[in-house]
């Protein structure tokens, strides 16, 4: 009883269902289903790009972009930035002699001092960068020349670094730690900044060297083999004896005194290992923390930059700079994006006007179609 009523219901509701119920006698027709997809009649939005239809888009883009551009431009202009080239190319520059005489093989450091004046005070946290030009850190073979496992504290990689590190893999029969060309060419100038008080005393400005690397790099990607304690033992152990990179003066376990910033997790090292995208780049060196809300971090005035000149760049026509900069929410000082937004916005606006003219002159369709019959 139930079944029959169910069947009847089904037959009422679904005619096709009943047809298949009919059994084998009903030959299944090959007739295609009349569905929107199969008949290619899916409901669709069919925009037609005509002057009339697209001109609002142009105006809207223009109206959005120009304010954004202005905002960005203003933001970028508010960022204070100071840059000084200390390469020592010029005869009269302080580091000329250092630059002239220095090479990788030098054993002693060369010191030079550069004076400069900040016209405006730097209000918030100041970031101190070193900048290199013409340094192709993005060279294909250079970029590859590292062993991430080794840097991650992998013991086996420590003693047997990856082939990618060649030819900076082994030195004097010992594996190099850290191996590879990137590590080998670690930037090793030391910069110190002094505020020259009016009375001529040099006030060393405290430079924070922690927090300059990515958090994930410092805590996840880079790890010392066998923990941070006893680095010397690890890098010089019997089984895990390593050699320092050929260009380095000190082995990796002597990069810093602070055990939390030594070895592979030395932040200067980590920053350097993040290879720059373009041949002219800067890397964060130190941070000058803002101390109080009343005092500017770096008041305007005279400063002295003490440089331990270790890093030769003249051989490849490179340049070294020191940069002081505040940052905003959008990063460092870069007026480009603001200008770009303003330009594109203006172009859009202009094209919108052009389209409007075209529309009024030629595109009669939309006006005609608007009138209902």
């Amino acid at each position, binding site marked *: 009883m139930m079944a029959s009523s169910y069947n009847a219901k089904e037959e009422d509701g679904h005619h096709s269902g009943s047809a298949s119920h009919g059994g084998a006698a009903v030959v299944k027709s*090959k007739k295609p289903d009349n569905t929107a997809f199969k008949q290619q009649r899916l409901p669709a939005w*069919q925009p*037609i790009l005509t002057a009339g239809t697209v001109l609002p888009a142009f105006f809207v883009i223009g109206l959005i972009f120009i304010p954004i551009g202005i905002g960005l431009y203003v933001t970028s202009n508010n960022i204070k930035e100071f840059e000084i080239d200390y390469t020592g190319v010029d005869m009269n520059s302080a580091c000329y002699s250092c630059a002239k005489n220095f090479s990788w093989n030098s054993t002693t450091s060369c010191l030079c001092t550069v004076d400069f004046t900040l016209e405006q005070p730097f209000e918030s946290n100041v970031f101190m960068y070193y900048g290199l030009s013409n*340094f192709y850190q993005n060279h294909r073979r250079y970029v590859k020349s590292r062993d991430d496992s080794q840097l991650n504290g992998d013991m086996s990689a420590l003693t047997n670094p990856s082939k990618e590190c060649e030819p900076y893999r082994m030195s004097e029969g010992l594996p190099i730690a850290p191996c590879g060309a990137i590590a080998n060419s670690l930037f090793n100038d030391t910069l110190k900044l002094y505020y020259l008080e009016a009375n001529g005393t040099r006030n060393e400005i405290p430079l924070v060297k922690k927090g300059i690397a990515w958090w994930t790099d410092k805590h996840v990607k880079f790890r010392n083999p066998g923990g941070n304690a006893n680095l010397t033992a690890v890098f010089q152990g019997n089984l895990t004896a390593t050699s320092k990179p050929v260009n380095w003066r000190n082995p990796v376990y002597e990069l810093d005194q602070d055990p939390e910033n030594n070895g592979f997790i030395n932040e200067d090292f980590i920053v350097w290992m993040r290879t*720059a*995208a373009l*041949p002219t780049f800067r890397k964060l060196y130190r941070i000058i923390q803002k101390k109080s809300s009343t005092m500017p971090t770096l008041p305007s005035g005279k400063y002295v930059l003490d440089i331990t000149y270790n890093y030769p760049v003249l051989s490849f026509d490179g340049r070294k700079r020191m940069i002081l900069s505040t940052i905003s929410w959008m990063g460092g000082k870069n007026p480009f*994006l603001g200008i*770009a937004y303003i330009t594109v916005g203006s172009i859009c606006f202009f094209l919108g006007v052009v389209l409007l003219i075209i529309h009024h002159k030629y595109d009669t369709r939309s006006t005609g179609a608007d009138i209902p019959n």
Partner: protein
Amino acid sequence: WATVYSPIPRGRKKRKNKENKTRTVRANTLLNDHPNPHYANNKIKTTKYTLLSFLPKNLFEQFHRFANVYFVFIALLNFVPVVNAFQPELALAPVVFILSVTAIKDLWEDYRRHRSDTEINHMDCLVYSSMERRYVEKYWKEVQVGDFIRLRCNEILPADVLLLSSSDPDRLCHIETATLDGETNLKQRQVVRSFLDLDCEFDPFKYHSVIECEKPNNDLNRFRGYIVHRSGRRDVLCKENLLLRGCTIRNTEEAVGIVIYAGHETKAMLNNNGPRYKRSKLERQMNVDVFWCVIILLVICSFAAVGHGLWMFQYGDKRPVFDVLSPQGTNLSPIMSAIYLFLTLIIVFQVLIPISLFVSIEIVKICQVYLIHQDMDLYDEETDSHLQCRALNITEDLGQMQYIFSDKTGTLTENKMVFRRCTVAGVEYSHDANARRLAMYQEMDSEEEECMSHGGTLPRRESVTSHQSARVVLRSQSTKSHRRTGSRAEAKRASILSKHTAFSSPMEKDITPDPQLLYKVNECSSQMDFMRFHSQPMSQLSSDLSDIIDFFIALTICNTVVVSSPNQPRHKVRMRFELKSPVKTIEDFIKRFTPSRLTSGSNSSSSSSLITNRSSNKGCSSLLSSPSAESTLTKLHEEQSSHLEPTFSPVPPCYDGKASWNLEEGELRYEAESPDEAALVYAARAYKCSLVGRLPDQVTVELPHLGKLSFELLHTLGFDSTRKRMSVVVKHPLTDQITVYTKGADSVIMDLLKPLDTGNSKGKRQKKIICRTQNYLNLYAADGLRTLCIAKKILSKEEYACWLQCHLEAETAIQGREELLFQSALRLETNLQLLGATGVEDRLQDGVPETVAALRRAGLQIWVLTGDKQETAVNIAYACKLLDPEEEMLTLNADSQEACALLLEESLHYIQAKFLCSSADQAAKAFHTNFVPCEINSSSSLSSHNTSPFLVHRLGLVIDGRTLAYALDKTLEDKFLEVARSCRSVLCCRSTPLQKSMVVKLVRNKLKVMTLAIGDGANDVSMIQVADVGVGISGQEGMQAVMASDFALPRFRYLQKLLLVHGHWCYSRLANMILYFFYKNAMFVALLFWYQFYCGFSGSAMIDQWYLIFFNLMFSAFPQLVTGTLDKDVSAETLQRLPQLYVNGQNSEEYKPYMFWMNMIDAFYQSLVCFFIPYFAYADSDVDLFTWGTPITTLALFTILLHLGIETKTWTWMNWLSIIFSITLFFTVALCYNASCPTCFSPSNPYWTMQRQLQEPLFYLLCLITPVTALLPRYFYRACQVTLLPTPIQVGRQLDKIPADTLKNILSLNRVTTGSQVLPKPEFLSSQPSPKGSNKKNRINVVDAEISEGQQGPVLPNEEGIGPTETEKSLSHLYPELPSETISLPYTKDTTLPLLSDVILSGWITSTPLLINTDRVQLSLLPDGPPQCVRYIKNSEELPSEALQPVNLEQTPP
């Protein structure tokens, strides 16, 4: 020892030798071990691979594709340490992916084949087991050569079987070969001659013969061999003895046979060849651009390599710290490192060669094919079949066709033959009533909705004195009421029923006899009856009458029609007079129809049975035809019908006894191999001369008064296309003379007639008959009828014996049997005596004229290649609007090479002269013509649709087979082409299959155009194969054309939607997708290229290698597939309404060579934007390489997707979904990838990169500005271009937007869009060598307001295509099918008239009827010899159907 063993090897050797020519089959019962071990068994395996061989075999096959080899090469290059760019394993990923996708597809296909194989292999059949001495069930796969198989009715044959026994009393077996060749008629197969006389059941154990036959081959219509009995007697085996695998046994309860060929050696399997591989035009074009991509790749790689060398060089010996030494620590020279870098860059930039393009195209094509399959409009309810795409990879070619070559019979026409007229002994019987009946069928559909009363008046429109008219009225009404009352289901059932029997729709079966002829037949047969009764010799019969009776006998028996009864559709009517057949059901049937009994029940029976069962009309008409009863009957009918008319009820009266009896008894069905045969048999039956039974050696005919006559069938000389005739040799039961009846094409029969002795009266009479018949034949042909001549010949016993001996020799020959039989037939068919001729109409298929007109307007040139005679072809061409009465027709008939050359030269001159002169003339006229401007009145209608008189050259070319043969000669083909090209339509008559393919080949190769051949029969196969796209009509003539075709259609009219809609869509989708692919890859690679300038050309990539490799395969793959599958630039309705839009594809306007470069330039621009905006935004910052690369990748993805968005015309939810999916996929993959492993994925080591980027506002700011800037030019260009210079397609899209009712308004005003006026191309005889030349300009302002100011007169196209204005010129370029024609519109911007612009838009759609009439020219050289030439003089007032009147018939003495 040696002697003992020697026989075996020798025997084996011998067998091996024999094997080369023949196969020997012994019965498996003879020996315990298998006697035929080296023959294939019946297990079939159509799979390509086994589990083991799959991998190597499939890879081997895939590496045949060059692209795959290239990609593998690149991947392997990565394993070389000096040059490697990516992780080698990762670089393998795309190649492996591509290969595995293809492999999986192949595997799946193979698996499906495997499953169907298993299914087939496990079907059951009865095989004789020598162990159990009975038939046991076995699987098909277990069947071996030499097995005996018992077959029951409706079983499918498992192998090729030699028929040894049949339960049929005549030792026949009927098979249906529909699965093999699609022919639905039954075929008779005969038991091997030596087993004919076995009375008892066949016992395999008594079989000891050996069969020698030919090696397996794929010829379905050939089987040769002989059977050697123990006695040493040899019997010939022929194809009549062989039952082929896949056929179905019908009408036969049981049959036994021995397996000759099994499994893969069966003819069915050998005939099974896979789908064809063709390369489409678009793909060829694409390959050129792939080649360009390779060049670009090499150029940028070399550029970068040189750059790298220089970069290295500038450092000299001082190596900077960042320039890493080679792993060996050696210092590479700049030159060496440049060379290494070159290879590295090829790997890095490999994406430029679109690896995924090939796979994507395949996927898109499969989807397109699927969607075409699913189109309801291409589904034919009647035959329950839909379009089949047999070639999967040339869908887009459908959108680029330029020439269509069509067969006529079965393609344009229904191939439903309807008997129309006949002439017997020089007297014409016009069958007017029959013609009116046919007209009724035509009107039926249109009138279906009209009210009842209207129907009655129609047939009376013409007051015909014939006393048959009354019945016509009745008939027409009843048919109509049947149609009206009968539900759809009923109609469907009827169609299903008729499907079982080929060629037997009521239209073909019901023939109204001509009263005069009917009277004569009756008189004649009664006289004969009388004479037989009085045993007078038949020769006393007047020759007129004897001709008539002979004529009908010939119609009835000179064929291969098989008779069956309808109620059991597949059961043969079994009756053998005098011999067997105890129950004579047919005689009962006839007895009840004796004239005396008729009158009583006829009123009720006729009216009711007509309604209930159309087939019973037959009975009715035969009742009425008795001369004695005729006059009274007609009176009765007249009364009845006039009485019935006003009150006729649409509800059919109840069935009375008669009706049910009718249903029960039914009538005979005729199953014919060709529709002509059936038509003639049905025609003869209308004259009560009906075929009631056919056996191999006997034909039974029922004649009025005479009753049943059995003709002993001595021979049947079947029809072949060389002889163009068939003959039967019978022994006449009344005269005992051996008579040959021949039926064939008039041209052939006329030459075979007995030379006339004009001296005596008989000869004179014969001559008169021949003359008259020839006249009528011409007349028939002019009416578009197919003509056949009927002739006979009486053989003396001696003549016959003499011929018979030769013939038997021919029959038994193994070598060259066909040739010998042919010669034998030629010997017999001589000295014939002409009896008469028939005219059979082949009706046009539904919608053919409309389709032809639409295709015409789509700019397609349609050529008809037919084997029919010229006049028939010309008339059909008129009927389907291929030729226009308004246009001139060039007829080329030549009978020698020289004449043909001359003729071609002359026509060329003529065309040129006419063209130049008239165009100048017309141009002058045009300046003075004030044409009526198009006006728009308040109801938005065009008050006037005609704008101006203009001249177009309309030429039709008609050429016959012989002339065509000359014209196709190397020396003349160019000239012929030139003439043919300037004609709007070309008609080749009397052409052979080979000529058809030669014409197609010629046009395709010389004119470099895309050709489509469409046909339905075996004679079209070669043409279909030669053409770029072959279309088969799965019609009535079997499946050969379909097998050879790329697309199979149920009906010709579906071609319209297939080409105009699907072709266009497929083309524009694929073209856009390919262009997009090139753009996408170029844009992505260019990003990397720009970076080389900032990394010392070191081959470094800022984009993570994972993104680099999966960008194409995953992140940007889906939206383009969706767009490539579903995008519709113009709706199907508009495409069909405006066939002109098809020109778009013909001119390859979606994908022109320059577009590739435009896309490349756009790609370079976009990549510049995508590269340099992030570059400047991050310039001199502390960003690292891959943190900088991540936003670039993201931007590139956004830009590429939005670019697709601009190019996408139709946004369905699937487009949205795919784009959202792509973006989500990218971010998901990026986030997961960047979080997965802190130390892996050297060198990028992207740990937490994306996560950090997402926290940066800069990232979002970049994502906003970069795509906008990158796409701004394209977006702006598109908007301006559509507004200022819309292409027709874009205009079509705008028409789509108009609300449906408004659009309907516009189009209804626009008569011509639905009309048939098609205008020829203005490039007619143009100096440009290729059709492409004239379409250099492709974006022209059509709907320019300036034009519609009306200050310009109509313009004529002339050779140079120069109109008075630039616009005009461009117009004629843009729309080659349009003559330069302008529409003047009162244009005001603030007009209150709605849809002004739409009307302007429609301007180019509108064309106007021709006002200038041109005279037709006859350009036929009068040949010296017999072929006569009929001149047609055209009168411009005539309608197309009546356009041709033979005015001047020239008789030439034979």
